[in-house]
């Protein structure tokens, strides 16, 4: 039975989530040097174009068709059989295509998140091929494992409400791999990197707004869980933004705008897997934990290891996603969501173990597959731009455009 209110809610949520990709573009674009902002905006927008088509043609089928435990197969190729009737395994009250469309926006933003790791040095042609292959061979199988009909981790009872594992852990681990393999950017020592912090704040605002659709929309209906997810999402983002600012205040003497918005995003990423399963107080715990752990990853661990995850895609999304997935196993409660499970604090330590297995599978599969895809594309396209192109900037060398003029 189609419920029109549910359908409207899911379609609007999909539109919210669509806005997150341009939001991410500004979030990342403001962080790079000004000779590279267009390349970042371009990569995010082209991900929207490219993966929208991939999803319609075969991505949705690979992710959600009833295949085996590990991938969906091609039975829904070109949306064959995906129509206006509900598909009750996923959602009993909205057209199947509405569910497909909502999920499309997740499939778009996940590969776009990785851009933060290799920003300012990847060749555009190589980026296109890498993104297409990564979406097809990493995102789609992982999505099926966790959310798809018959997915192995789904059957195991893993909890991932809106994509802590599927979206943030996978993109974050892919970010770590690509940042290490592609190597550091040139000339970083003397150049102030974020060239436009107001863009970073603007991007954060759009992401935060879109995240309501991301998390609450994942309830796929207008019900208590959707309302709870709205509250939880906002609470975690607020707690994380505030605590990151305080951490900086204590450690560096001043709270920064950049730090506060980074904290908010870390909180949002971390609460994503938990957003349909936990109480508001748990959301505060998750937000504060997100800030502390991601802060350590970004400000302490990264400089020590010396890899150049340009915009902290791993430090914020990867670390946040893993932390959130594990905390879900601690803080989940059946009082909030009877369809979920109880976590460690609610007398069910087994759930934490299941979450650990989920994270281990997501991390190791993503790690290996991303490395293989990177090396493969590198052979045919050479991932990194030439040294001169990197120094001149990707805007001019990859797109023959410039973002800013000097006079006029």
């Amino acid at each position, binding site marked *: 039975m189609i419920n029109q209110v549910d359908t409207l809610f899911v379609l609007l949520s999909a539109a919210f989530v669509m806005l997150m990709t341009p939001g991410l573009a500004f979030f990342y674009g403001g962080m790079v040097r000004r000779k590279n902002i267009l390349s970042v905006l371009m990569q995010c927008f082209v991900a929207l174009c490219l993966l929208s088509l991939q999803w319609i043609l075969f991505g949705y089928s690979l992710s959600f068709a009833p295949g085996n435990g590990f991938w969906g197969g091609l039975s829904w190729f070109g949306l064959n059989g995906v129509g206006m009737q509900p598909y009750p395994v996923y959602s009993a009250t909205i057209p199947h295509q509405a569910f497909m469309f909502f999920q499309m926006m997740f499939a778009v933003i996940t590969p776009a998140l990785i851009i933060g790791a290799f920003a300012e040095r990847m060749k555009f042609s190589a980026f296109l091929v890498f993104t297409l292959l990564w979406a097809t061979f990493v995102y789609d199988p992982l999505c099926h494992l966790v959310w798809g009909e018959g997915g192995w981790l789904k059957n195991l009872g893993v909890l991932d409400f809106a994509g802590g594992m599927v979206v943030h852990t996978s993109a974050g681990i892919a970010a770590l791999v690509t940042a290490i393999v592609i190597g550091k950017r040139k000339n970083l020592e*003397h150049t102030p990197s974020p060239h436009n912090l107001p863009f970073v704040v603007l991007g954060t605002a759009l992401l935060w707004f879109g995240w309501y659709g991301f998390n609450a929309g994942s309830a796929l209906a207008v019900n208590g869980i959707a309302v709870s997810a709205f509250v939880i999402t906002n609470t975690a983002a607020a707690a994380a933004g505030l605590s990151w600012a305080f951490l900086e205040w204590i450690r560096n003497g001043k709270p920064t705008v950049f730090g506060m918005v980074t904290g908010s995003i870390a909180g949002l990423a971390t609460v994503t897997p938990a957003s349909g399963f936990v109480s508001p107080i748990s959301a505060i715990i998750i937000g504060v934990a997100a800030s502390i752990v991601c802060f350590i990853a970004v400000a302490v661990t990264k400089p020590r290891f010396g890899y150049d995850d340009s915009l902290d895609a791993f430090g914020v999304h990867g670390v946040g996603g893993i932390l959130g997935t594990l905390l879900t196993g601690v803080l989940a409660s059946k009082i909030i969501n009877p369809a979920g499970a109880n976590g460690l604090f609610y007398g069910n330590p087994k759930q934490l173990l299941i979450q650990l297995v989920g994270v281990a599978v997501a991390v190791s599969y993503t790690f290996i597959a991303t490395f293989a895809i990177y090396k493969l594309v590198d052979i045919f396209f050479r991932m990194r731009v030439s040294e*001169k192109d990197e*120094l*001149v900037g990707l805007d*001019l*060398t990859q797109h*023959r*455009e410039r973002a800013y003029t*000097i006079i006029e």
Partner: protein
Amino acid sequence: MKLVIAIIQPYKLEEVKEELYKVDVNLITVSEVLGHGRQKGITEVYRGAKETGNLLRKIRLEIAVNDNFLEPTIKAIIKGAKTGETGDGKIFVLDLKECVRIRTEERGSVAIG
């Protein structure tokens, strides 16, 4: 005392700065300028329409030095900025009449370093 004005490629700024630090020239003023040389430059495209012949972006360095620092400064700039292609830029050297450090009101050679 001399005033060295150098026009260089923007992407060579970091290398030039490195070379200048090596010869102990640390006080420089940098500005972004537009200019026209022989170089045709990198073509930009707006919505598919090619545009060439625009003024090109360059970096202008101003460095005030004492006479014994002049040659090292010039050599450092060349070392950092030279690619051998058109567009590498130019170095101008001017006599500098006076130099005053505002904080201490010192004048002349002592005020430069």
